[in-house]
């Protein structure tokens, strides 16, 4: 479904991403692992056309979307839950969700999407009119995911959704992700912590200093008990 | 053979013809009198200068129709100085190079001042028919330069004598915050205090104001006998009249030539009736009537007073050349300087232009008038001179 070929670029004249190539097939759940500063969020920006300088080829749903702007990608079915949630704090839950559905056509679809998101995250239904900025971190994360889902995406990118969230809420979100998988959603999950990533996905890429250095299925990765050792060994000179 | 001879004959004929052309030209050149005009067609002085220039053109046409001067036609050479002093001097020089025997300056006083340096150096008779700055003949000792425009000092004195004659005891001055308006207001104040009238209040309408209601409420509260308007900015002038009407005020409004701008009659239509201003034109004067009728016939519209200055200016020059009996610039200068009692379209009834006592300002001290605006037109004279 999603294919990146030789993706390079950054926020300024110097490149953060170097020749990144990833492929995600329809229905897959893939993780993107790597230490802080590896360029994972930068890659998310590149995939959603919010990175100022980007070279390389991006294909989505079989189409070349290298020149398509962010709002166009959403229209084609690609949505991002950004790092740090980035919800619209002064707006209510309903207003936030409504804005996620900007590309939707008919009224019927809108109602249906609201029902779907509320069924996935009942807590949001309880807090419909509440100001988003007043909610807890976990609830805001649910809102961010729900908002991304409002556009009925075929593929979801999630950038570190579990950062700073209480374990109980993490479980709720993971459960929701499972449901989404069952409904056929493809997703790419950026995550620092290996155990959580392994619970949610079946395959993983590891990124270090802007390069993809490893691709593996999750069962094999789960043999490694200490992710830090892994990162360390991967970033040693012979791998660079 | 025949072709060669024929060709040579043609060549000789062509040569003779070409050789004789300069002769033809010189003969033609000797049949006109070149007079230079400096005007502003595009710049800030456009709406003062162009009407005056039109008056010169009209006067020239009439003079030429009557046989011209010394049997020759007047040819006007008109240059545009964009009302810029440096350009004005350059254009004056160009005119002299083109062979003019006299220059008429119609643009702003600073531009005329700068052009004077050229008339002094090239010893060319130089006249400003409309400039009113008092210092034009005093700042530079230039015996070639003459000013027949209505001096600001004369206009102010005329206004003051009218104000006094109305019996006003206490007045307000309203101005805008431009420096020109400020100096107008200062001269008003001095003049008023000089004739024993109290200035109770001076209100300033700043440029960019959206309402003059507050200013005029203060004036109204002061209960003055009259308002002296010293403004020069159009939009702020309009605010003044709007607020005056809105507040239902009735105090008489007086101004100097700052209120004589014809454009204000359109801008402040129906708001200026009864306002008095200073001018130098009385349309009941016979010479003014003659000018008026010819202008109306030619241009199919009513003239303001501005073209009359130009009309008089070119007639004055023509008269001086006739008196001099030659195109010699010194003779023309002398003839100009000895002008006495030149009665033109400009000036109150019974007044005339004269360069008395060696002075080079010719406007009659009694020549300014106070006129009233009536039916959105510059109306009749209500006061003349400065007695």
């Amino acid at each position, binding site marked *: 479904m999603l294919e990146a070929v030789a993706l390079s670029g950054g926020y300024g004249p110097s490149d953060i991403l170097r020749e990144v190539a990833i492929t995600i097939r329809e229905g897959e759940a893939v993780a993107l692992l790597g230490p802080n500063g590896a360029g994972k969020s930068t890659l998310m920006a590149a995939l*959603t056309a*919010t990175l*100022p300088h980007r070279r390389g080829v991006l294909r989505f749903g079989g189409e070349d979307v290298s020149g398509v*702007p*962010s*709002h166009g990608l*959403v*229209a084609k079915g690609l*949505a*991002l839950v*950004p790092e740090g949630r*980035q*919800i*619209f*704090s*002064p*707006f209510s839950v309903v*207003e936030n969700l*409504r*804005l*996620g559905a*900007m*590309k939707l056509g008919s009224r019927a679809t809108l109602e249906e999407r609201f029902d779907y998101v509320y069924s996935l995250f009942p807590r949001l239904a309880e807090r419909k009119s509440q100001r988003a*900025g007043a909610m807890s971190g976990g609830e805001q994360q649910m809102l961010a995911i729900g*908002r*991304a889902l409002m*556009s009925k995406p075929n593929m979801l990118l999630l950038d570190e959704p579990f950062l700073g969230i209480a374990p109980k809420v993490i479980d709720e979100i993971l459960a929701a992700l499972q449901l989404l998988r069952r409904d056929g959603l493809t997703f790419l999950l950026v995550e620092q912590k290996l155990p959580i990533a392994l619970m949610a996905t079946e395959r993983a890429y590891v990124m270090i200093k802007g390069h993809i250095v490893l691709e593996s299925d999750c069962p094999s990765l789960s043999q490694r008990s200490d992710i830090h050792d892994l990162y360390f060994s991967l970033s040693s000179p012979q791998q660079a | 053979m025949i072709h060669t001879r024929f060709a040579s004959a043609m060549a000789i004929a062509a040569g003779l013809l070409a050789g004789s052309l300069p002769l033809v030209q010189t003969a033609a050149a000797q049949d006109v009198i070149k007079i230079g005009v400096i005007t502003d067609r595009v710049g*800030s002085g*456009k*709406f003062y200068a162009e009407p005056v220039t039109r008056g010169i053109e009209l006067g020239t046409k009439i003079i030429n129709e009557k046989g011209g001067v010394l049997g020759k036609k007047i040819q006007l050479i008109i240059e545009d100085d964009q009302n810029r002093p440096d350009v004005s001097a350059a254009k004056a020089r160009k005119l002299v190079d083109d062979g003019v025997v006299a220059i008429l300056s119609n643009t702003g006083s600073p531009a005329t001042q700068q052009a004077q340096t050229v008339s002094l150096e090239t010893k060319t008779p130089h006249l400003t028919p409309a400039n009113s700055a008092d210092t034009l003949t005093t700042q530079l000792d230039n015996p070639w330069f003459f000013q027949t425009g209505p001096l600001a000092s004369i206009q102010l004195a005329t206004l003051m004598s009218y104000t006094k004659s109305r019996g006003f005891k206490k007045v307000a001055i309203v101005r805008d*915050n431009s420096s020109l308006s400020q100096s107008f207001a200062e001269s008003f104040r001095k003049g008023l205090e000089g004739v024993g009238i109290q200035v109770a*209040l*001076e*209100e*300033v309408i*700043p*440029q*960019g*104001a*959206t*309402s003059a*209601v*507050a*200013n005029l*409420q*203060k004036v109204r*509260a002061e209960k003055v006998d009259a308002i002296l308007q010293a403004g020069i900015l*159009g*939009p702020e002038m*309009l*605010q003044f009249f*709007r607020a005056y*009407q*809105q*507040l*239902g005020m009735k105090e008489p409004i007086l101004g100097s030539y700052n209120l004589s701008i014809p*454009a204000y009659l*359109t*801008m402040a239509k*129906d708001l200026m009736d009864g306002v008095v201003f200073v001018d130098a034109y009385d349309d009941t004067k016979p010479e003014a009537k003659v000018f008026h009728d010819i202008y109306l016939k030619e241009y199919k519209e009513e003239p303001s007073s501005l073209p009359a200055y130009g009309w008089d200016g070119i007639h004055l020059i023509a008269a001086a050349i006739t008196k001099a009996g030659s195109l010699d610039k010194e003779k023309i200068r002398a003839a100009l300087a000895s002008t006495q009692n030149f009665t033109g379209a400009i000036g109150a009834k019974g007044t005339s232009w004269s360069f008395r006592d060696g002075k080079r300002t010719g406007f009659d001290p009694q020549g300014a008038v106070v006129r009233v605006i009536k039916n959105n037109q510059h109306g009749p004279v209500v006061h003349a001179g400065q007695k």
Partner: protein
Amino acid sequence: MEDFLELTVSATASGCIYALMALSYLIVLRPTSIINFAIGEWAATGAFVGVGVLTTLLWPRLDAPYPVAVAIVLVVLGLLGWAVERLTVRPLVKRGAPVTSPILALLGVLVIFRETLTLLFGADPFPSPPPLGYRRLEIGPFAGAPQQFFIIAVTLTIFAGVWYFFERTVWGRAFEAVAINRRAAALMGINLGRVTALAFAAGAAVAGMAGLLISPLTSAHYMMGLPLAIQGFTALVIGGVGRVEGALLGGLILAFAEQLGARYLPIPSGLTLAFPFSLLILFLLLRPTGLIAPREVR
């Protein structure tokens, strides 16, 4: 007391004009962070278009009633705003230029517009006919010119409409979203380019209306733009850049300060001009976000 009531009408009307200018800044500023100082010239353009449509002074009259003139001003200014955004702002934004670049470019646009107006119409002020005529009108205890009451009514309508748009419609919320978090808004599928273009078009239309509304009182004049731009900016600073209501409040406070000061302050008339500018400096020093707090911005 009569003075005060008359002054209230006059100050409210002037305040409405300042408020419209502040609104024009705000509509563009919120989603783009660009301060468009050229809006003064757009107001002047609106005034001249009004004169052109309603009189024969500029070109043969179209014999159009007032509402048509309003519609023409809105359309012409909307197109101009859109064109300016496309030609001067968008190329800079595309190249990733810092926000100061479009601001400077728009100063250039200011000069171009003013010189064009000067070339086309010259230095004379042109009268603009007020749609309700001119006289002293008394409504209850208040007295003023019909045009002043008209300005107040139209401004309140515009503000109500804009407030409704931003607070109650999805597209208005989308604008707000862009103002709150540009990148997140793009990720929602909101077309940033279209939002920017619409903001400029709407800002221009509002400024054009301000010019059309004030010109019966002040004339259409090539120099009228700069004072309006400054007054609008001052109103914006006082009222706060965050909310539409702030623009209205700021405009009213500025106008009342100006006119009540001119009437009642016991200082020479020439100095009353300093009063609103002192207010501006005071606000910039003490409360730069203005009176009405903005929504939190991420």
